[in-house]
């Protein structure tokens, strides 16, 4: 649960970082675009100020040249009326001029393109630049409110900007006044800047507004302040952001005329300049915001799916663990989980029960600690070989408990590999089968030994005889098969009962067994018949002392309830020689036949089987 919360927090933080990064990048790009837009509009504003300043300066300069020329030539030889007509002619190609007039020294209009102006006085003291010593400078007057000098119109609907040039005359001081038509320049500027975009204004250097693209209230604004702010004494052009009285932010540029006392100030509305930026912002946000939302949605969906998957995985692992632990703990089989290096990682309760080692004692040890030493090195090598090739091994082996007791177990080892096949662990499951092993040994004994005498029975006899024959073949020695039948046993049995008969059988058989050598075999054939197999005889005579000892052992009395019971034995002997290919059955039959001869000859003796003349070979030995 805690992990889940931590994961959630981590995911949330990652999303926040992502969002912050996108927001930062977007804001930065938008900011760049914005400053770009402002910068380029400022440049446009500056370009406009420069272009208008240049246009106005050039126009005034050209007008000065052409009109003073006409006036100077005219004054020399023509009448005032003729000169007026000449001015009228000049005005035809000059829409920037309203009228042309000549002032005499008293400032009275003596010649004019507009006859209505004649005789009027014009005050020129306040024209800029101010002159003290009559320097020949072009001077700009205050806008005349009216269409021409003869007319005054306080509404300012039509105005005229008088520009004064001195005329080159030696004797009399006369001036030419050109009435500049501000509408012509305003029209020119309106081509590029209408009210929706901005304002261009032209001021005399003292701050007096000469013309403006603004339609209303030319005199209404405190313009001189605006011009004072420009600090024209320090710089003649520049650009900056400014705020109008109505709160509108403007991209302002200004430029002072290169020749005359006026400055052009152009203001471009920043909101208009940023209109394209606004659409760009919208376009970018329209792309970025849905993209970010999409990415977030996809991320959340993926995250939730991953979390669900993890939860499912954890749940299934938990169930698996529960199952495994349950099996592990409750199993009757001992379980060892060992690392790939063979160190015990875990054992279960059954392990402790079987081996006697506690879990704490086992962990970290090698399973070799259980080794009993009954299996040789080859056994283990084979086991490891199989484990490596097949991934599992199963078999039986003997181990040693902590208390030293040896026990048998049936063991299965499985190698647990990871996805690439590297062994991670070995899991050994084993069961104690000692009891089973003991029972099995008992069964085997019962099958091969006689229950009363504990002598090999006929089945084991056949085995032993076969072995002896093979051995004789290899060693070029002789094997003697002695068929033994007790004489007088039936009488003991009948007279003293089965108990006495059984005692006679067990006692006599163990004495006979003791009379033989270690390698020899004595087996009970059934009833009172026994068969002895004598091995490693170099010649037939080697058997004779043994036969004698057998007869003696059989004839020895047996104490039974204050009585001495006595039997004897009749022995029939056949020999197996390596040169002869006599079969086992033949050997037994021959021995049987010889025993029969011994019985015939008077019992308590032995007879050796003679193939050609069985009777001749018969010998009798009296028991001692």
């Amino acid at each position, binding site marked *: 649960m805690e992990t889940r919360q931590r994961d959630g927090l981590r995911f949330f933080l990652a999303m926040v970082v992502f969002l912050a990064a996108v927001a930062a990048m977007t804001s930065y790009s938008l900011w760049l675009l914005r400053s770009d837009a402002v910068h380029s509009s400022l440049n446009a504003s500056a370009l406009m100020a420069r272009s208008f300043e240049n246009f106005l300066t050039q126009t005034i300069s050209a007008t000065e040249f052409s009109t003073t020329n006409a006036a100077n030539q005219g004054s020399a030889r023509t009448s005032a009326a003729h000169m007026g007509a000449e001015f009228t002619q000049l*005005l*035809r190609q*000059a*829409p*920037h*001029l*309203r*009228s042309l007039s000549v002032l005499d020294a008293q400032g009275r209009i003596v010649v004019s393109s*507009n006859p209505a102006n004649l005789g009027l006085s014009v005050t020129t003291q306040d024209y800029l630049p101010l002159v003290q010593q009559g320097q020949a400078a072009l001077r700009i007057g205050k806008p005349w409110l009216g*269409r*021409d000098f003869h*007319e005054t*119109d306080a509404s*300012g*609907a*039509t105005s*005229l900007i008088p520009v004064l040039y001195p005329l080159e005359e030696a004797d009399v001081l006369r001036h030419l006044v050109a009435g500049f*038509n*501000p*509408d*012509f320049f*305003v*029209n*020119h500027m*309106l*081509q590029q800047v209408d009210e929706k975009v901005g304002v261009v204004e032209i001021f005399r250097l003292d701050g007096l507004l000469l013309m403006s693209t603004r*339609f209303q209230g030319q005199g209404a604004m405190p313009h001189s302040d605006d011009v004072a702010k420009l600090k024209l004494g320090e710089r003649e052009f520049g650009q900056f952001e400014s705020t109008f009285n109505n709160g509108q932010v403007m991209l302002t540029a200004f430029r002072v005329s290169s020749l005359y006392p006026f400055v052009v100030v152009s203001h471009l509305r920043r909101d208009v300049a940023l209109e394209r930026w606004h659409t760009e912002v919208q376009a970018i946000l329209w792309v970025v915001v849905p993209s970010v939302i999409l990415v977030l949605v996809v991320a959340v969906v993926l995250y939730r799916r991953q979390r669900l998957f993890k939860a499912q995985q954890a749940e299934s692992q938990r169930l698996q663990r529960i199952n495994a632990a349950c099996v592990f703990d409750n199993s009757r089989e001992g379980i060892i989980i060992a690392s790939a290096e063979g160190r015990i990682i875990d054992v279960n309760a059954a392990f402790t029960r079987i081996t006697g080692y506690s879990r704490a004692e086992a962990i970290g040890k090698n399973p070799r600690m259980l080794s009993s030493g009954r299996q040789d090195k080859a056994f283990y090598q084979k086991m490891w070989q199989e484990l490596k090739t097949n991934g599992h091994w199963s078999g039986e082996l003997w181990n040693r408990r902590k208390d030293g007791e040896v026990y048998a177990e049936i063991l299965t080892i499985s190698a647990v590999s990871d996805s690439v096949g590297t062994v991670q662990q070995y899991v050994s499951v084993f069961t104690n089968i000692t009891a089973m092993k003991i029972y099995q040994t008992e069964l085997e004994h019962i099958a091969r030994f006689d229950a009363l005498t504990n002598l090999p029975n006929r089945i084991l006899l056949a085995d032993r005889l076969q072995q002896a024959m093979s051995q004789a073949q290899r060693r070029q020695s002789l094997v003697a098969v002695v068929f033994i039948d007790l004489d007088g046993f039936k009488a003991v049995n009948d007279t003293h009962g089965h108990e006495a008969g059984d005692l006679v059988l067990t006692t006599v058989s163990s004495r006979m067994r003791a009379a033989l050598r270690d390698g020899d075999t004595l087996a009970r054939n059934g009833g009172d018949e026994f068969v002895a197999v004598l091995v490693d005889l170099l010649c037939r005579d080697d058997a004779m002392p043994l036969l004698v000892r057998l007869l003696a052992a059989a004839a020895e009395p047996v104490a039974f309830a204050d009585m001495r019971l006595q039997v004897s034995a009749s022995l029939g002997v056949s020999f197996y020689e390596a040169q002869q290919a006599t079969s086992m059955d033949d050997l037994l039959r021959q021995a049987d036949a010889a025993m029969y001869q011994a019985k015939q000859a008077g019992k308590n003796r032995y007879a050796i089987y003679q193939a050609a003349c069985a009777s001749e070979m018969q010998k009798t030995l009296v028991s001692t």
Partner: protein
Amino acid sequence: MRLTSMVFVLASIFYSALCWAQSSAVIHPTRLQDVRNAKKVRVCIWPDYYGITYRNPKTQQLTGIDVDMAQALAKDLGVKLEFVDSSFSKLVEDVTQNRCDVAMFAIGITPQRQAKLRFTQPYLASDIYAITSKANRRIKTWADIDQAGSVVAIVKGTLHEPIMRDRLKNAKLMVLDTPFAREQEVQSGRSDVFMTDYPYSQRFLTNADWARLVTPDSVYHITPYAYAMAPGDDVWHTRLEKFVTDVKRDGRLQTAAKRHQLEPILVR
């Protein structure tokens, strides 16, 4: 003898008078014949007339609906075409003094002109419009024109002269007689507006970025436009009347009007 001689003199006077009358009738039977004999038709135009008969000062190329119509007329008559520069102030003189055979520059039919000239049927009809400078602060609507302090420029001899003289009560009228003078006066601010008609205003505004059109709030004064000739020649008049009927019917007039954006004022 005195009597006979007197009778002879009287008879010879009568005869000679008769002969003079006969010969004069033979010399000017009709202008149509003159045009055919001369193998050219002389058409009076006003080369400042945008959309009608305008000579571009930069290329000296003539364009306008009546340039097209004059060519059509010459073609119909099977003669060559010669344009004669005229103006509204010289119109009556030029036509009656036989400087041209016909005046083809959208001549408004006014009573003053009808007294001296003979017109064909009208083919265009236009109201009066005013043009002012974009920077003009005085004139915003049509109603601002006839106000004290306003100056209205018109071209001498145009149909606007009598109409504006009649209609303007407060504004000052400025009558001009030099080429393009009214534009110069308005542009320089010496006058506030100049009066003109539909064809001139439409064409003029496309090329004057400083100018602004002021339209009347309602119909002000619609004048029908026609071609004018000297009075008294029925044959010539009939022929020109036929020409106007022809160009109206066969679509040449409409095509030309469309070409010069004058369809809205076409008289069908």
